[in-house]
């Protein structure tokens, strides 16, 4: 059994930022466990640019953004166990991991979960048809093309207009493939507006909304797909079916926080975010276990992942130093137009101002967000527009929380 103050599970953007923040908050004995041969997580395959505008004030590609944090880890001498797969985390913070040289167990004073997320698969989507080669999740295709230099197809249909799907539409076009269509089952895209512009419009790729893949055709290899418009219950409408010949289908149909370890530890999970229920330090319902990044909630921007991870890192360091954190006595609840609010609990004794992160239920024009506790308004904010694909952030002053007693509700009102 090894002993470390803080064990970070996952060496992606969340894990690296959390480890550096914990170190900077005064806990020097921090280690990262990561299953890949090097840190960086999903950023290693995200070779496109657009990262870091908020956090670092400059536009970087994914590998460059990862390099900034890799350097922070190196400068601080934080040890990473690579090629190390965590297989179990217990509620009393013993982390078990599998390595080539055997199994290691680490007893930690605090654990930070930063395992990221994975893509929804064809099986989970239940797409009818045959089972030929040529059906990939968009992220798998991204890894094959960008890291291994293996082109996955020549004539492509993409199901799902999340950011990875849009990025891959452009990537496949740049590599010489013809992207026939991007189909989105919802009446709006789940991706960032800028990605629709620079990934689809730039390359004249059509986006079909309220449309899904109703059937996959082909024996050995994909030969085509049947697409159809969907009704209000998202069921394909038979008479709108049409056949698109293609050799590849990419799926970009949502990301699922990878919380198997979290569940085994007995940590309560929110059915809405798919991640742990946390307080303002990103501490889960089990004391001393924290979570951040895409394992906690799926983010659109790595910049916000880094922010969230720094909160978790600092929280874990405080926990190690004091043995506990102030009880988070106030619940936060989504109100009108809001799908979820994170953190789900905050402390009225919070020493610093708190940011609430949230997603709205559907696209809106100009909106006013109101944060209330009972009848007391804690904060308001106006946004020119709001969409489910773009996470919102609202700030609350710590002095406003001191007098708050009832649950905190966040709701929105659409303005004319």
């Amino acid at each position, binding site marked *: 059994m090894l002993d470390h103050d803080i064990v970070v599970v996952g060496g992606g953007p969340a894990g690296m930022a959390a480890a550096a923040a914990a170190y900077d908050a005064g806990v020097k004995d921090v280690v990262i466990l990561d299953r890949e041969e090097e840190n960086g997580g999903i950023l290693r395959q995200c*070779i496109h*640019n657009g990262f870091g505008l*908020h956090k670092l004030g400059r536009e970087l590609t994914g*590998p*460059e953004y990862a390099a900034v944090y890799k350097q922070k880890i190196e400068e601080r001498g934080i040890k990473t166990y690579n090629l190390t797969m965590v297989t179990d985390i217990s509620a009393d913070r013993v982390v078990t991991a599998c390595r080539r040289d055997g199994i290691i167990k680490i007893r930690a004073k605090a654990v930070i979960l930063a395992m990221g997320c994975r893509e929804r698969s064809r099986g989970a989507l239940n797409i009818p048809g045959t089972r030929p080669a040529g059906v990939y999740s968009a992220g798998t295709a991204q890894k094959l093309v960008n890291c291994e230099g293996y082109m996955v197809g020549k004539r492509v249909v993409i199901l799902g207009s999340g950011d990875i799907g849009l990025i891959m539409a452009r990537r496949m076009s740049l*590599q010489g493939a013809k992207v026939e269509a991007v189909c989105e089952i919802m009446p709006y895209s789940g991706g960032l507006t800028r990605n629709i*512009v620079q990934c689809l419009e730039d390359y004249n790729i059509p986006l079909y909304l309220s449309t899904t893949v109703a059937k996959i055709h082909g024996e050995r290899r994909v030969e085509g797909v049947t697409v159809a418009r969907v009704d209000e219950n998202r069921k394909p409408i038979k008479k709108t079916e049409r056949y698109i010949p293609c050799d590849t289908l990419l799926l970009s149909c949502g990301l699922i926080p990878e919380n198997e370890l979290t569940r085994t530890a007995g940590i309560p999970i929110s059915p809405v975010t798919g991640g742990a229920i946390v307080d303002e330090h990103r501490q889960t319902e089990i004391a001393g276990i924290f979570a951040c990044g895409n394992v906690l909630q799926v983010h659109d921007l790595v910049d916000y992942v880094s922010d969230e991870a720094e909160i978790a890192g600092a929280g874990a360091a405080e926990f190690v130093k004091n043995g506990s954190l102030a009880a988070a006595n106030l619940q936060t609840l989504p109100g009108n137009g809001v799908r979820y609010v994170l953190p789900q609990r905050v402390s009225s004794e919070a020493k610093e101002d708190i940011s609430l992160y949230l997603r709205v239920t559907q696209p809106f024009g100009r909106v006013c967000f109101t944060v209330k506790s009972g009848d007391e308004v804690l904060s308001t904010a106006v946004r020119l527009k709001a969409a489910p694909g773009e996470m919102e952030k609202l700030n609350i002053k710590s002095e406003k929380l001191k007098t708050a007693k009832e649950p905190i509700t966040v709701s929105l009102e659409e303005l004319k």
Partner: protein
Amino acid sequence: MKRNLTCIICPRGCTLTVETEGDKVSVSGNSCPKGAVYGIEETTRPTRTVTSVVRVSNREDTMVSVKTAEPVPKENIFDVMALIKKASVKAPIHIGDKILVDVCGTDIVATKDVL
């Protein structure tokens, strides 16, 4: 002439209205000065940063990610890609190393280390 654009400078994605009258271009709907510059550039001379990968010839199954050091004119994207596709490079490579020089007015630089 009036044209609606979505600003792609940052993830906020402001809806810009760009009005062109002869040589005069005016932008509204932007939330920051960068948006105004983007609106004018996008109407008069649209550019994009191109990112891709180049094969590392002395490492098995290894690619190095690259980008154009500066954005290139939109109509040159596929010219840039044609050159990138033909290129190969030898490790060690460091972030910022020039992989190709003078491509459509800029250089192609590495965005990761391959040691």
